[in-house]
């Protein structure tokens, strides 16, 4: 099999973001984009390259630094016939519009007895590993995970970025779309035409028999690298890429455990309040008899993100930490 990460035709995760949005804008004139520096400047992470040029200022709108206006306006537009795609530059800034994201958007359909729908996407660059320090490096997918009424996508490959973007924009429900900063430069096979990956459908990223590693976004390549290393030691690890947190595909996780009977969850958000706690609790409730060992979680340390690489590596799960933890779990 050709190595898609280096072969000819491989595309970056970064350019797949713009590709995914552009495909939807071509097929649906109600899709519009808004955010800071996303137009002529093409995004601070260059994730909207080409959109302004192709679709113009009536479809791609530069906003002031006003996160509440961005997400609030997206909500009003979504309730009235558009499918807005709003960019919040860094996921840390979701705190600035948390009112709209946590208290307005996920509740309005319910509290009106189903009278309105809010088909919007809030895209945001999430996670650490690039040395941006405590206020621009957090993995905050667990923030959204605490609020019923939001769908949560967090792709790990370029093709998934495109396919899940299609599902997110076509969804009649609000979707928070976490693009991982540490993956922007990574490469993979391009998405085929009309590629759609449904939300709530996990992917077996690597098959294995001895234990199951459940991962998301940046921790997928981390888990895959650990699995590769462990294969040389005779440990066969299966890697499940959850792809989305809501809907949460527990069917795939439980089916994997039927074969491996050992579970390790690898997450970038902090251990305290991390999404892995919910995955562990469902397995404890519904899959206890499948298990031959305690459930383990490898998550970020419960500290703010430090600046220096050597310090950041102490906080965020690394291949070394995951590998060590898997060895202990495999021999339990």
């Amino acid at each position: 099999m050709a190595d898609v990460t280096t072969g000819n035709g491989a595309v970056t995760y970064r350019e797949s973001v713009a590709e995914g949005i552009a495909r939807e804008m071509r097929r649906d004139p109600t899709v519009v984009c808004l955010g800071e520096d996303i137009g002529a400047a093409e995004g601070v992470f260059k994730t909207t390259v080409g959109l302004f040029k192709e679709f113009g200022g009536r479809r791609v709108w530069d906003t002031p630094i006003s996160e509440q206006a961005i997400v609030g306006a997206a909500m009003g537009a979504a309730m009235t016939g558009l499918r807005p795609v709003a960019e919040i530059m860094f996921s840390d800034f979701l705190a600035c519009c948390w009112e709209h994201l946590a208290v307005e958007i996920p509740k309005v359909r319910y509290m009106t007895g189903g009278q309105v729908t809010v088909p919007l996407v809030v895209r945001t660059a999430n996670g650490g590993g690039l040395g941006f320090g405590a206020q621009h490096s957090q993995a905050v997918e667990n923030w959204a995970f605490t609020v019923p009424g939001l769908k949560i996508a967090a792709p790990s490959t370029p093709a998934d970025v495109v396919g899940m973007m299609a599902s997110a924009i076509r969804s009649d429900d609000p979707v928070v779309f976490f693009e991982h900063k540490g993956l922007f430069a990574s490469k993979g096979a391009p998405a085929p035409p009309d590629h759609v990956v449904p939300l709530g459908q996990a992917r077996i990223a690597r098959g294995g028999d001895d234990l199951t590693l459940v991962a998301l976004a940046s921790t997928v390549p981390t888990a895959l690298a650990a699995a590769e290393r462990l294969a040389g030691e005779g440990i066969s690890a299966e890697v499940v890429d959850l792809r989305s947190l809501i809907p949460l595909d527990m069917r795939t996780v439980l089916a994997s455990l039927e074969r491996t009977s050992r579970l390790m969850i690898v997450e970038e958000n902090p251990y305290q309040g991390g999404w892995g706690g919910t995955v562990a609790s469902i397995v404890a409730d519904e899959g206890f008899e499948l298990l031959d060992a305690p459930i383990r979680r490898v998550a970020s340390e419960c500290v703010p993100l430090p600046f220096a690489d050597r310090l950041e590596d102490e906080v965020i799960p690394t291949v070394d930490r995951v590998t060590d933890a898997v060895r202990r779990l495999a021999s339990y």
Partner: protein
Amino acid sequence: MTTATEPGTLSAAQLLDLYEEMAVIRRTEKAIQDLFLAGFVKGTTHLAAGHEAVAVGASAALRDDDYVFATYRGHHHAIARGATPEECLAELMSRATGVCKAKGGSMHLTKAESHMLGSYAIIGAHLPMAAGAAWSAMLRGTEQVAVAFFGDGATNIGPFHEALNLAAVWKLPVIFVCENNLYMEYTPIASVTAVPNPAADRASAYGLTGEIIDGNDVQVVYDAVLQAARRARAGEGPSVIEARTYRHYGHSRTDPAKYRPEEEVAEWMARDPLTLARDRLTALGVAGEEIDRVDSRARQLVSEAVDAAKAAPEADPAEALTDVWADGSATWRT
């Protein structure tokens, strides 16, 4: 709904219609107060008695397909935009027939089918939403206008300023209507605000004109909103209207409003929007008996609405686990 005409030209018949709508709202608010005390309404309520002219005057000046966003003090806007007193009362009384299936309550009355897109209970949150609805109307080329109604207290929170700036920069067809009732909850707005007119004085910071109007005079409100809507439809951008008004009850159910000076209360009660409308009707030659007939019709309508809401079934417990997602379900995992 009354058809929009020229400013200052509401006919006696049109004004009488608006009087009746205001009377229905007033009676509904009184009924809610009584039902709360009798244990039929739980939680809290923020009654809008005294604010009727803002909702009714503005609504009459709008097209039926214009968007309205209101606050937790929003019963008057829901009714002015087509919600019936019965479905509002049923909502507050936790009945299955409530306008939001008893999932919203007093603070979230919504009538989406007539473009009343909700009542929002986090201060200021809905101003950007109204800007977004106006943006949507502009992009879809429908010449619809969006209106956000909000209290004086909302002018000191971030989204007010973010929304005004965005609306001005993008020249959106949105009207920001501040219902300045002089009190931010229990505190005089003047004592916590750097300028005397909390909404209107801020407008100039965004290159907009802020208009201060008598929010108790339905004709005045109608005229101001009609002209703002015309500007919006003509592509001339947003307007800020500060309608001065007064609430007849406290901030919420638990507030007897003892902090308001007696003379101030007396002065505003003498300028009750229903009284002012009655004066206008009399000046237009409408007989007192005719106005009284409208009053008793409003009383009768609300009284029947109370009976119907009381007789309606309680909310079905199964409804608690519906309406999270667009497919109607609450399913979060596979």
